[in-house]
Structure formats: structure tokens, C-alpha cells
């Protein structure tokens, strides 16, 4: 039942100055994900299941960032325990509904985000009303049992909703991502290199460069000052041409050839050598050596520093993209498939060099396939006029390539019975600029994870024996966390938690009651948990004593000692990680994490486990 809601504050961003007000508020993050990323965030509707600190910290970070709305699902009442580890409840909230209290405080953080809550048990909503989740972009679940999570995941997948599940158990946190398919276009890798094609110039670039070569129009009339402003990309085109290396494969660039190219760059800028054709390697090298580098103008120094562009493979298809292009989905495009897949099909046809519209489905990607040009050029010493001209040449070639990709794409759209207009020219250009890192991520379902299906068991067993001690350690943490889940499922309380919880609170998901004074059965719980761990290890074919030198035993002891505790320190870290993943999923920018990530706060380590 939806009982409280704050509509988007009308007029909060009134027509005038709306953009400016927003820009000011979100300035620092716009510099990370841009206005289009922000727009996607602002249309994102998030649902949170369970209002413990881990989940609430996650939503807090998202509300600050300016999502569209949040909906909290929780039927618990605020207890003193909440005041101890959850910042977004007041003393005055004691005894009131937790979802309502938290929603009100979160709403204060950013009134342009609307909030709502549902005072209902998470299990009940998941069990009885899976359609409830259709209204959201992302569901964040915290402290939800694996059994319920598997159902929830199924409901989300069926409705193309992303799921982020978080849990904090003492000093151990887990982050789970699940979605049928997540498409990443703007991966924003840390290092990118410009694709300048100086060794594979298209006719317009070749013509432009030729003008600067000896005997090529303006080449002979330049003053020294002008010569010092020839953009280095032009110099490289001419040097490659002068050496007769145009279109030569990278393997043809022996050490000698590379040295010759560098010598030719120097020679081109030494006035004495100006009238000497740079093809004469020996003479050019001799002149260069005689004069040294000191007298070279800055653009020549830049050309030398960038000489590797001469022998790097032009527009090479990155291995990760090759993998994406071999996705079976490309050969079975459905009418309503996302344009991402049609564009990839168009790109593949472009890379195969298929003529016209007849794309042959079976042709392999040629090894020398050349990507559509990205089109941006780096910093170069130049005159404005030449630089702008060069920029235009690259932009036009990039646009022409994108148009070619679009033609292929439209063929596939037609073939699938979709509208040709489903992909616009702008979209195709944007796609081509980022295509090198396009990727579709598919995570294992929670159901498979729960049942050790789809290779989950073997994968975990392998991680337990991973030579990287951090990975093996975190995998062991994961096994214990799964055992705690089984324990909780059968006993209705966390191992180590006061027995009163079991007695007093019939409801499975309630771990909120109980206090330190209550009686606990530490030894009994430890025994029980240990036996579940052993069973779990057997299920996946691993042996307890062989796991990391028996470390599992001490992890069991620690899990009982923490008694389902959710310390705020750990929850805060997890809330940061969780919100970050939600933002990646929503903006389609940056690469998200693996299906399951384990965080160990004592060691300050993380590892992807499944």
C-alpha cells in the first residue's frame, strides 16, 4: 500500500534558470558523466527493499546525485538498534514505521527527488506482487535471503529491471549485480589512443598533407615560422608516404624503417635539408645527426614523440569488440531489439567490407578490418587555420564512416521488420565514436547461483583454490555468507543472535529485535553453521580443510560472533560501492562489476567471486 508520497516539488526548478540551478548543484558530477548521463540518472526510479544502513546509505548517495524517485519497502518499526547504525532515523521516530521515517529524512536531502514507501514485508511483496517491480529502473535489495532474492531476480529479469543486492554481515560485505543484459557503450577506459590513420590516409587527408610536401603546392613557399606550425599528423603522413610505407602492415615496420622515419621527420624541419627529398634516408639521417635535435621546432619534436602512429595498426578492432561482435544475438535480431544490437550488426557488416546492403551472415571478420574513424584529434602545434581544417577532415571522415555503418544498420532494421528511422544519424555517429569499447554484460542469475547451476559451483571451487590469496580469502568469506543465509532461512535468525529473536518473532526476515542481554547459544550456533559450511563445500566439490589452510573454521567463528550485525562503517563503504554500480547501470557509462563482489573490511580488500 502506497501511503506516503512527495510529488516532485512543483516549481523547484521553474522554467527560467532551471538548467542553471541544476548545473550548479550537480556541477561536480556533470564533469564525470556529462549532461546526458545526468539526464539518465534523473529518469531513474529506484526501489529499495529493507531499510537497514547498507540499503539506506546506497539510496542516500543516489538521492544526492538526483535520481527521479525512490520507493522504500520495509515493514519494520524503528528500534533503538536502528538509532545505533542507521543515520536516517531520529530518536523521535522510535516505534514508528521504519520505511516512512527513513523516506522522510532522505527526501530532505534533495527535494527534487520524489520519495514513497510501502509498509509491507519484502517477502510478501516479492511473493505476491512481482508486477510491483515493473515500475522501476533498478531494484536495490539489502538483507534479502537468497531464496527471496532468486524470485526477485526472476521478476526483475522478466521486466528488464536491473537488480543490485547488498549485504553487510559484520566486517564482510557482498555486492551482487543481476540483469539479463547490460549494454555498455561509453566504457570510458582510462587510457585511449587517438586513431589518426597517418599510415592509411583516405584521399582527402592525403591531398591535404601533400600540399605541405616539397613540390606540393604551398610546401615550398612556407617561411620557417609557418613551417614550424605544420601539424604533426600531416608531417607523419608525408614521412610515411616518402618512405613508400603507405598501407604497409605494422609488421613491415622494422627497426630500420622506424629509425628512417624518425630521421625523415628531423630532416623535414632542418632548413638545409629542405630541398632534399626526404625519401633519401641516408642523406636525411646524416643531416639530422649532424645538426642534432636542439634546433628542431616544437611541432617536429611533437612529431617525433608521436612517431609510433606511423607503425601502429590503423583502426584495429579491439579483442573485446571482436567478442561482442560474435554474439549470437547479432544473427537473430528481433524487431524490438535495442538499437545497440542493430548498430553492432551494421558495424560488423562495415568491418567485413560488405558492399551495399547484402550483408553475408557467415563471413568472418577480415584480420585487417578497419574501424569507423573516431574522428577526434589531439593537441598539436599548428596555426588555427590548419588545425581547424585538419579537424574538419577527421570529422567528415568519421561522419562518412558513421553514415556507412548507418546504411548497413538500416538494412538489418528492414530485414527484422523494424522501422528504418529507429536509429537516427546522430545515434549512429555517437555509437561509432564509442564503438571500440561496446560490450554487453550478462550476469549469472541468482537462481543459478543459489542452485550452483550454470557453472557457479565449479567457478566458486576454482576461486577457493585461486593462487591469488585475496581471491581465495574472499571466496571463503562468500561460502560462509552463503551458509549464514541457509542458517537464517531455517532458524529465522542469524547465527549468534539471541535466541529470543527465534522465539518472539515468528517472521523470517525480522532480525531487528533482541538485545545483548538475551541468551545466545554461541557454541551450538557455531556447530550448526560449521556443518552447513561443510555441506556447502561438498556441494561444490571443495574440502574444508583444503580451503586456504583451514581458514574457513575461523571465519565461521567470526560469523557467529558478529550475529548478523551491520556496523555502519562497513555499511557506508558498501553503500558507496552499491550506489556507484547503480549509477553505472543507469547511465550505461563505465564498466560494472562482476556478478558477486566480496568486501572484507578488516583487510580492506575486495574480490570478484562469481
Amino acid at each position, binding site marked *: 500500500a502506497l501511503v506516503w508520497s512527495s510529488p516532485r516539488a512543483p516549481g523547484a526548478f521553474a522554467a527560467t534558470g532551471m538548467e542553471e540551478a541544476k548545473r550548479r548543484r550537480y556541477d561536480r*558530477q556533470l564533469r564525470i558523466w556529462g549532461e546526458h548521463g545526468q539526464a539518465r540518472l534523473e529518469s531513474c526510479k529506484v526501489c529499495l527493499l529493507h531499510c537497514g544502513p547498507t540499503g539506506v546509505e546506497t539510496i542516500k548517495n543516489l538521492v544526492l546525485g*538526483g535520481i527521479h524517485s525512490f520507493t522504500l519497502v520495509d515493514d519494520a518499526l524503528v528500534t533503538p538498534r536502528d538509532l545505533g547504525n542507521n543515520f536516517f532515523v531520529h530518536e523521535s521516530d522510535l516505534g514508528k514505521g521504519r520505511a516512512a521515517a527513513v523516506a522522510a529524512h532522505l527526501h530532505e536531502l534533495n527535494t527534487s527527488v520524489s520519495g514513497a514507501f510501502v509498509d509491507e514485508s519484502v517477502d510478501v511483496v516479492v511473493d505476491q506482487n512481482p508486477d510491483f517491480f515493473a515500475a522501476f529502473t533498478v531494484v536495490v535489495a539489502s538483507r534479502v535471503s537468497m531464496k527471496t532474492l532468486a524470485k526477485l531476480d526472476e521478476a526483475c529479469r522478466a521486466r528488464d529491471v536491473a537488480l543490485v543486492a547488498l549485504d553487510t554481515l559484520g566486517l564482510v560485505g557482498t555486492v551482487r549485480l543481476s540483469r539479463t543484459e547490460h549494454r555498455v557503450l561509453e566504457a*570510458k577506459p582510462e587510457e585511449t589512443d587517438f586513431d589518426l590513420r597517418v599510415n592509411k590516409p583516405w584521399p582527402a587527408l592525403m591531398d591535404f598533407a601533400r600540399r605541405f610536401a616539397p613540390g606540393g603546392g604551398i610546401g615550398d613557399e612556407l617561411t620557417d615560422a609557418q613551417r614550424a*606550425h605544420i601539424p604533426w599528423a600531416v608531417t607523419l603522413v608525408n614521412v610515411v608516404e616518402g618512405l613508400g610505407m603507405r598501407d604497409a602492415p605494422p609488421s613491415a615496420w622494422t627497426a630500420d624503417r622506424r629509425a628512417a622515419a624518425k630521421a625523415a621527420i628531423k630532416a623535414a624541419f632542418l632548413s638545409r635539408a629542405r630541398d632534399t627529398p626526404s625519401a633519401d634516408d641516408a642523406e636525411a639521417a646524416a643531416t639530422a645527426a649532424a645538426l642534432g635535435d636542439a634546433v628542431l621546432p616544437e611541432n617536429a619534436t611533437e612529431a617525433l614523440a608521436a612517431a609510433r602512429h606511423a607503425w601502429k595498426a590503423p583502426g584495429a578492432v579491439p579483442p573485446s569488440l571482436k567478442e561482442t561482435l560474435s554474439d549470437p544475438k547479432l544473427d537473430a535480431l528481433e524487431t524490438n531489439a535495442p538499437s545497440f544490437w542493430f548498430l553492432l550488426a551494421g558495424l560488423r557488416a562495415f568491418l567485413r567490407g560488405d558492399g551495399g546492403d547484402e550483408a553475408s551472415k557467415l563471413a568472418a571478420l577480415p584480420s585487417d578490418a578497419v574501424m569507423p574513424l573516431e574522428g577526434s584529434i589531439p593537441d598539436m602545434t599548428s596555426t588555427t587555420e590548419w*588545425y581547424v581544417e585538419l579537424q574538419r577532415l577527421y570529422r567528415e571522415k568519421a561522419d562518412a564512416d558513421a553514415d556507412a555503418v548507418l546504411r548497413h544498420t538500416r538494412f538489418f532494421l528492414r530485414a527484422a521488420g523494424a522501422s528504418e528511422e529507429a536509429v537516427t544519424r546522430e545515434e549512429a555517429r555517437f555509437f561509432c565514436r564509442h564503438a571500440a569499447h561496446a560490450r554487453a554484460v550478462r550476469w549469472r542469475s541468482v537462481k543459478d547461483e543459489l542452485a550452483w547451476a550454470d557453472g557457479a559451483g565449479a567457478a566458486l571451487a576454482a576461486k577457493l583454490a585461486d593462487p591469488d590469496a585475496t581471491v581465495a580469502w574472499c571466496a571463503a568469506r562468500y561460502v560462509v555468507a552463503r551458509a549464514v543465509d541457509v542458517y537464517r532461512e531455517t532458524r529465522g535468525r542469524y547465527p549468534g543472535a539471541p535466541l529470543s529473536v527465534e522465539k518472539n518473532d515468528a517472521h523470517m526476515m525480522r532480525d531487528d529485535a533482541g538485545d545483548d542481554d538475551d541468551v545466545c547459544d554461541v557454541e551450538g550456533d557455531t556447530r550448526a553453521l560449521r556443518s552447513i559450511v561443510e555441506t556447502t563445500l561438498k556441494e561444490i566439490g571443495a574440502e574444508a580443510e583444503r580451503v586456504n589452510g583451514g581458514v574457513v573454521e575461523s571465519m565461521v567463528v567470526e560469523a557467529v560472533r558478529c550475529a548478523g550485525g551491520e556496523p555502519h*562503517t562497513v555499511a*557506508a563503504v558498501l553503500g558507496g560501492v552499491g550506489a556507484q554500480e547503480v549509477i553505472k547501470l543507469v547511465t550505461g557509462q563505465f564498466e560494472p562489476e*562482476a556478478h558477486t563482489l566480496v568486501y572484507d573490511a578488516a583487510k*580492506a580488500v575486495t574480490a570478484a567471486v562469481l
Partner: protein
Amino acid sequence: LSRPSRDLFAHAGSLGVMMSPSSDAQLAKDAKVLMVGAGGIGCELLKTLVLSGFENIEMIDLDTIDVSNLNRQFLFRRKHVGQSKAFVARSSALKFRPGVSIEAHHGNVKDDKFNIEFVKGFDVVLNGLDNLEARKHVNRLCLAADIPLVESGTTGYLGQVTVHEGKNINACFECSPKPTPKSHPICTLRDTPEKPVHCVAYATDLLFPKLFNSNRDLTSDLDEEDARDARAFACDAENGESFATFATRVYDFVFRTKIESLLLKEEMWEKRSRPKPLPAFRDVVKGESADDVAAGADATLQKPSASEAVGVADAQKVMTVEQAARVFVSSVARIMTRDAEAAANREDGVCGTDAFDKDDALAVDFVAAVSTLRSANYGIPPQSPFDVKGVAGNIVHAVATTNAIVGGLIVLEAMKILRKKKDAKGVEDDASAKQKSYPPCRYTFVKKRATNNRLLEPVEPDPPNASCAVCGQARLELVCDTESFTLGRLLHDVLKKKLGMHAPEINAPETVLYEHLEGLEEDEIAQYEKNLLAVLTATPAGGVRNGTELDITDFSQKFEFKLLVTHRPRSEWDEEEDPDLFILRGDQSAIGEAEEGDGAEAGGDAAAAGDDDDDFEIVDDGDELEIVESADAGTKRKRDASAEEGAEGAEKARRVE
């Protein structure tokens, strides 16, 4: 309040050797912590501290709240804009957790009251700072007071937490070199800019103070003869010149007349492209009057946005010359109107806007306009107002998520330090008596994504660096032209700016050349001020020459070192390479010795990013990647020392001359 201890930081013991939850809870309860900085990291940290059982917290921050803080500094609301961060953070946190003692100081950590004695009153100091100078100062205070320091920083998705437990235990914050801002040669800024950043620096560093600084007699590099002759930068208000008219006069002088006269210097353009004077203002705006242009849609000149008034709405779009000219005149008129009104309310009748502030919308308008017009003069690709603001304000992008992670990590490290301290004191209760292997402190680096499985990368703290001038024994060397370098530059540019000293004292072998002026006799002050004006060789008692060793002391930081002066004549300096005309470096002999230990190369990594915005130290948006060899683990780690992560990355860094 009853707070079940299972939710407290109760389980940090390494496996099998855990202390009792109550013991950890007691540890947090008894601890006195000092937080420096109540910004992005500070908000998260304060929240996590109070929820981890800490009950005695003091914090210092000199900043006030800006709208752009609200996307992550969650203790602040829109209604708090303009108020003290420290005070608001305190009251917001107390609203949620009334039982905790939080003392807030709205002030600079360099203030005298936050001295070594003050720091000694705490068990641990937690830094969430945004500028290198303050970080260095706190580092020295902590070293002097022998109080452990947890340092932190974030930039976009990257973050780091480092621990500095004290002298001889592990590296201090300054054991590894920190990137310092790059300065530009004045002549490049004034006459021959080449890159967009030069146009921005011209606007913020030269033209802005020249026009708006309250000290009208401030000497400036723009005070050349032709400017003085034309009274180009002085508004003739007495004869009725309006601010808008004055602004058009500045426009015509700076973007037209001055460029025309520079063009006459033929030798300047032999190897450079010649700049183009812009058309006169009245031609650009097609005869519209200066006052009408300045007013735009707001005749009162009260609206704090010139771009809005003249109808330039999209900050992501590059302005045309006409738009920039209008924004220029309107912003100058508005800033001067604002200052004049403020001055009228003051006794001394003087008020100005002394320096560019990225949170001042009019200042941002002004800088964006100047930079656009200057780019047009010199054929440099213009940048959008959004990008100009980023460069001018050294803005570091920042999100809530990374700060949340870092805030949590700081508390984890602080708990380890407190436990270790308590164990060392032997004050052990029964439960912790067997506790001997509390997890060791770690540097933790937060990455954008779990590459190679590691979203967080913990690294053993670096050992002390023997050649560190701050916690080690090293001598520093200053290379300069002793015949033209003044003692004043040594004080301000070297000791204060470069070394972050607060109140340095300069001792030559025979005499004291300078000490902190506060509380001195008048004749002493006069003597020291005279010394500051003298070139090094002309200082008292024979002068400072090649080979002189100075003793530099700062009692407020308990920081002391020897400075060897090496002479290099003016003719041997290349201003392009060393625009500062001095080099400060570790004394070669000292570094040679240190290389035997493993400290010297270790950890140039704690790249000192700062959430927040202010004064982040890296100006260049280049992609300076450094590979750092970690001394102990032998693992290579690579980090992005700069702040380059923005959405506009690739297109930003072009240069045209």
C-alpha cells in the same frame, strides 16, 4: 540509548583473535578525535564516526556552503548555502544523534589556536582536506605533537586513505613528493598565449585583480606604459564615466589597442602566428550603447549573472565574440556595481573582489568572456563557459559514492590505530588481553572499477623516507640568482608557498634575517621588512651567497631544516622551463645517502587529491600516469595522478598557436 554492540565496530579482530565487542565500543567512546575538513569527506566521516560509537569529536573548517556541495555533502541543505560548513555539519549531525559531543570551529587550521598543544589533546587526527598547503600544515602539527594522522582524498571515482602513525614508525604525509601547480611565464600570459589555459590564467591572475582588487594601487604585470598613459584600467567615475562605459574602454584597450601595439614588435612574431585585434566594441554590438549592453534584460544590474542578463543560456556552448563582448561588459559593470554598493556600507569606503572565486557566478562570467575574447585574438580554440570554469577553479569532479567509501575506510583505520595505541599502553581489559594481532594499518586506494579483482587496493604503509625534509634529516637546496632573488621571495614563494610553512624564521650563520613579525619591537620589524626587500647577497652580515647554509625554523609547526643556497646567474635561466626562476630540491648529497634505504623511491603516490574543489593542486588536465614501485610489496601500482576523468576528456587538450 541502548545500542546492540553487534552493530558497532566490534569485530575488527583478525580471525580467531577477536576482542570483545564491548572493548571496541569502549575504545571509540573514550577516544578524542579531531576532524580537519567538513566537506565531502568530512560529512561522511562525521556520520560514520557518530554511528561507530565515537562521542568526542572536534572539527575545523573555514569554508562556507555552496550550492555545488549539495550533490554529496549530505549534512547541508539548500537553505544552508552561505553558512559555515563546520557549524551546520555539527548541528545536522546532532539533530540525528543528540547524545554526542561535537565541537565545531569555523576557522583556518593554520590559526594560532590550533597549535601543537591543541593537537596533543586528541588521540588521532582525521584529515578530509582539499588543499595541499593545509595538509602539509596538519602533517607537521601531528609530527610535532606525536599524534597519528589518517589522511584522505578523492577525485571522481578515485580515492585514497593513508595512515601516518608518527616519526620513525612510517612515512609522514610529505615523505613522498606531491605534485605542485604549474605556473606559467608572465610574458606568455601577457603577450604570447598558446593554449586555452593561458587565456584562462590571463583572466583570473592578471586582468581580474587589476580591475576588481580593493587595493587599487596594487602593482600588476599589466601596468605597462601604454596602459598607464591611457588610464586603461582606471574608471573615471568623477567625470561621470559609468561602469559600463569603462568596461567598453577596457574591452577596446585589451582586445584591440593592446594587440595592435604588440603587432608592432616584429621580433615577437618571427616564429609565431600574429594575433588579430578584435573589432571595436561599438562595431561588435552594432552601435548599441554600453549601458544597454550591460543591462541586458536586467537594468538594475543587481542580478548576479551577466550571462543570463544578456541572454547567453547554454554554458556548454562556446560563446561567439559578440556574446562574449556583451558578457564581458555586463559582468564588469555588475561586479563593480556590487563592490561599490558594498563599499558604501563600509567605514573605510573600500571594497573590492580581491580574487577570482569559482563560486562567484559573475566572476565565472567575466573569466569565461575574457578567455573567449583572448582566444579569438590569438587563434586559440575557445572553450565553453563550463570548461573555462573547470580550468579556472581547478575543479575536481566529485561524487557522493567515493566519499562514502573513503569515510568508512578512514574510521576503520582510525580504529586500528586506537587499538594499537591502547595495547601499547598496556591498558588492557580482560577481553583484549590476548589481543596481540590487531589488523595492521594499511594505505587503501579506491579505484574506479575492480580491475584484477581489486576495487580497493590495500598497501602496507611506506617506511619513513630518510631524505624527507619534514620528518627526516635532509637538507634542501635552493638554486637561484642570489644577486636578484630577494629575501622576500625566499620567504613568500619558497618557504610559504612551496613548502607550506606558516611562520618561518630565517637564520643565516651570523645573524637572524627574518622572524615572524607578531609581537616584535618596531625597530625589529623595520629591520626585517628592509631585509625582505634586499637581494640575497645584500642581506646583513655579509649576505647569502653560493654555498651559504641557512637554518629555517617554524615553531608553529615545530619544523626545522637546513637550506643550502646555490647561485645560478640570471643569464642561465630559461623562463619557459622554470618560470619561477628558482629550483628547490632535495640536497643531492642527502639523497645519495638515502638511496641505500628503501624510502627514497617509495610511494610518490598518495597523490593528494582533494574532494572538493578548492585549490586542488593539479592544474593541468593532462594524463600524468605514474608507475610507483611500492617499496615492500614490490607490486607495481599505477595511478592517475591528475584529475583527468571528465566526460569531455579527449577534446579538451588541444593546442593551437
